[in-house]
């Protein structure tokens, strides 16, 4: 990762594979639990009991189940980890295990939007309501993302530079994209990358204040009468590795990571350009980088929040990008099952793309009653078995962060 003016920059990209993946969502903990849930077309929303939602318009979310402890994490370390870090740790460990790794030297790149917000909330409440400073120092320390992520790295036995990206809801995709670039350009042989976010009162109330949450608690991405998103929580991590390094240690791969493109939508802080200009730009550049035409993309895991403005912009971007091939492009939003995981969304949805490649199925956009007329693509409304060779995922965030990643299943030799 270091920069030295005298060192040559490698402009010859190297093939990059995903040698490990891990996931934790409200659908379940681990690859198989999530694959089973998405394959069955389940939704995973429940009443939020982590904080008081009695005065919110909405009381449900994609709240995940977490273990009380982990055998490989000392109790004191576990106690200091916030909820988001615990989820990140569990999925990152699964990513390492499936990659056949048990820690080691590698850069770590993580995306998060809310960091350890619940810890910050406790700090605030104690400062406002109490007169004692007891416990406040530890809250200040453990609120910080870098404190939490270095603790996660210690628990994983991973050593290396840490980069934390906070580009709102595109953070997780950006993290994997940065890892791709680092490996592709020879700056690292492998990188542990992913994203996470846990439910927090501030963020939940924030989306509610924007009236962005679906009052029914059931998001219906691309439905004509969609009325908002559902918040979720979780984490997704991958091991991004050079093909040569993976082959050298006989590691299996989930597929190749072919391309990453990012752009900034400057239309508005919280609203996308109505024609999806930035999304069009990232999809176009990513497919060009991958050497693909739109019709060669078998599945798009859309950003698909279920908010009126996002879905229109993304649908228009997909139509503009795919042109005459639009009707054949199969698209779904897995946020309809687990909600919007904010900083974790892009990485979790990347892992869902890898599961689609591994298990040859298309996860669905559930709960759609009448497809929005803006949709010209093949909206997958029920899970289906399908030949899936290439999957693309879009992530967009507040502030205009746009990112696209493309994965391809490789025939095993």
């Amino acid at each position, binding site marked *: *990762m270091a*920069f030295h003016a005298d060192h040559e920059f490698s402009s010859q990209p190297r093939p990059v594979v995903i040698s490990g993946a891990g996931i934790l969502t409200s659908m379940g903990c681990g690859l198989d639990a999530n694959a089973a849930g998405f394959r069955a077309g389940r939704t995973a929303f429940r009443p939020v009991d982590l904080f008081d939602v009695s005065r919110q318009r909405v009381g449900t979310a994609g709240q995940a189940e977490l273990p009380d402890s982990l055998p490989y994490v000392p109790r004191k370390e576990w106690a200091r980890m916030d909820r988001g870090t615990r989820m990140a740790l569990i999925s990152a460990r699964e990513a390492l295990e499936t990659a056949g790794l048990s820690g080691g030297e590698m850069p770590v790149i993580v995306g998060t939007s809310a960091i350890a917000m619940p810890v910050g909330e406790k700090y605030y409440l104690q400062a406002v309501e109490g007169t004692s400073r007891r416990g406040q120092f530890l809250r200040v320390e453990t609120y910080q993302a870098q404190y939490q992520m270095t603790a996660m790295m210690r628990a994983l036995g991973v050593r290396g530079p*840490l980069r934390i990206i906070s580009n709102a809801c595109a953070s997780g995709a950006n993290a994997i994209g940065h890892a791709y*670039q680092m490996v592709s350009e020879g700056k690292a042989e492998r990188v542990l990358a992913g994203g996470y976010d846990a439910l927090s009162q501030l963020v939940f109330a924030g989306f*509610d*204040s924007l009236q962005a949450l679906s009052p029914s608690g059931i998001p219906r991405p691309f439905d004509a009468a969609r009325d908002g998103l559902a918040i979720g929580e979780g984490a997704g991590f991958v091991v991004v590795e050079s093909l040569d390094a993976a082959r050298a240690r006989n590691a299996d791969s989930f597929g190749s990571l072919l391309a990453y493109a990012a752009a900034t939508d*400057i239309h508005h*802080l919280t609203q996308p350009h109505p024609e999806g200009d930035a999304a069009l730009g990232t999809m176009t550049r990513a497919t060009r980088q991958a050497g693909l035409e739109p019709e060669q993309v078998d599945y798009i895991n859309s950003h698909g929040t279920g908010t009126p403005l996002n879905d229109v912009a993304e649908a228009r971007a997909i139509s503009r990008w795919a042109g005459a091939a639009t009707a054949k492009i199969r698209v779904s939003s897995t946020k309809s099952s687990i909600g919007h995981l904010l900083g974790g969304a892009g990485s979790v949805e990347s892992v869902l793309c890898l599961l689609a490649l591994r298990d040859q199925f298309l996860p669905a956009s559930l709960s759609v009653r009448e497809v929005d007329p803006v949709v010209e693509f093949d909206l997958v409304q029920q899970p289906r078995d399908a030949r899936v060779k290439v999957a693309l995922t879009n992530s967009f*965030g*507040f502030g205009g962060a746009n990112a696209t990643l493309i994965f391809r299943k490789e025939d095993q030799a």
Partner: protein
Amino acid sequence: MKPIAIAGTGAVSPAGWGVPALMEMLDAGVRPPLSELSRERRDGPPVVTPVLRVPGAPSGLPRNPRLRRVSPISKFAAAAAIEALGPERIERIATGDFRLGVICSLMNGCVNYSNRFFGEVVSDPSVASPILFPETVFNAPSSHLSAMFASTAPNDTLLGDGAEVFTALELAAEWLQRGDCDGVLVVAPEEIDWLSAEALQLYSDHYVPSEGAGAIYLEPGAEGPLLLSVPDPVALVPGGDRAAALEELSAASGASDDGRTLLADSRTGVPRYDDPENRAFASWQGRRISVKKLLGESYGATSALQLVAAVALLGRKEADRALVTALGGNEQAAGCWIGQK
């Protein structure tokens, strides 16, 4: 690719708005006057925290709709960015032919609006302001910068301790080498409120919470000191030797201490926290400046201001090269090596 140069810098600090105000204060060696943040409590006396604030109102900020309702952190970032780019370059960017990348490096971020918004949530979430919430997001300042300069090129916000700005510099160099951008603006802004100021004093009553922004503009082939190296940060291990981490960083940078090399360190004037930097560079022969001793602690913002000050001193030929280092609170020792080859 042509060598990457630091083609512009910008500063907002308790010394004032602009690099000249910063350098005037550093030359005089006099700390700006302290002010106080006072917080009323239901039970007991108010909590009073001595702080260093950015004085007065910004001048020269454009009438941009994005800046209408932002908290101070975005105004600091915008002012420092405008100064770093300069009017000619801003005009060039506006033509649309120039791809400006933006990277913000933060530790605390938009604390004022987060504090206010969560206060409203606790009081009554049904009337919490939808105007405040989007500004609480970490990447709001960097988004405003891209919008202000109408740039759709890459934009990232990095989080970390006070040494994170050097990771942002390394990422900027990566973008330029890859050809993602024609120039990259790295900005490290921070703002304070009672919440963050009191938090800092939990580490030491001698810390002075501060605020501001430092901006560094990088462009290949431009006039200015060159970015010679940004070594990998050295991770801080709990209970580990922080002086050794700095020594490792210094060695990895390739910097040579020949008496004409400036060291811009991150000592704050709090002996307990300065000890590793004292030990690591005890035999430093060249000039040494410690910006935080005068400007207080604003994490990455002051680390960026160290770099801004170093560039100014190189411009005045007071040194040939500069090693800029920062010992972060709980993550890393990091730095960069700048000057002519």
